[in-house]
């Protein structure tokens, strides 16, 4: 079973990295940028689980290590969500 975790800074938390990237893009002429925030993608391949079970296990991974709840929020996609996107490549 494959799952993808997206970790983002919570709204309202200052993203200095995003601000620096935004400034660099503005320097390249992309002046239409209103906002830019940088997050993380974590791809996970785990053994013998249904999408529901995988979601539960990966959620536990997020709570214990992958995201820091003080700063970050996360979303989990499992193979069901990912398959159409991968197939479209």
């Amino acid at each position, binding site marked *: 079973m494959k799952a993808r975790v997206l970790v983002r800074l919570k709204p309202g938390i*200052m993203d*200095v*990295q995003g601000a*620096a990237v935004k400034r660099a893009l503005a320097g390249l002429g992309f002046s239409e940028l209103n906002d830019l925030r940088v997050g993380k993608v974590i791809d996970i391949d785990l053994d013998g689980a249904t999408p529901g079970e995988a979601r539960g296990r990966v959620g536990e991974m997020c709570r214990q*290590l992958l995201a*820091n709840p*003080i700063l970050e929020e996360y979303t989990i996609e499992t193979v069901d969500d990912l398959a159409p996107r991968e197939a479209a490549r």
Partner: protein
Amino acid sequence: MRFGVVVFPGTWSDCDFHYVISEVLHQPVRYVWHRERELGQLDCVILPGGFSYGDYLRAGAVGGRSPVVEALREFVAGGGLVLGSCNGFQILCEAGLLPGVLTRNECLQYRCQSSHLVVENVDTPFTRGFRPGQVLTMPISHGEGKYYADAETLVRLKQQNLIVFRYAEADGRVTKASNPNGSLDNIAGIVNPEGRVLGMMPHPERASETAMGGTDGLLMFQSLLGTLVEDGTFLKR
């Protein structure tokens, strides 16, 4: 007083702490490997600075889940003393042994410089040798030292007097200009409610001999020893 200095892959201040404790303070000290779970014979465990496990994922995130940190919970529950400096502070926050989190410096620069700290709390074993409001000079060296906590936590830190050090000017005034990393409320160090676990971004081990340029850090170690000696010889108050 028996000290343990924890070594993770990527730790870099372990030898400095070991040197100060053994050669300057003449106290028994041993290195503690990050896989160790036995801390029973120690009085104080040091989590030094560096980049534990490469600081992958987040600074201190993987270190905060290592076997030695799991053992540290029991050590703390039994009344053991823990000092986390720099990466050690990040690890203590990631492990939940201290509230809040250290995140990327607001200036986006790695800051390696001398800093002034004002002592806010002298009622801890680590700071009992200081005067309230005393200004210390210690080096900082970090890219992710911006302390952040939610509003509720900040209120609790203030109400319970858990903020120990704040970045300040040389005269002790706490100003925005003296804040090297954008830390909430200029926070440079905090302690747990029991006063046994202290986390700080500055490096006391790099200010512990005249040849290093200052000895303000040494006073922290001497404060610690005073808790065992109880003779008050070095205490200034």
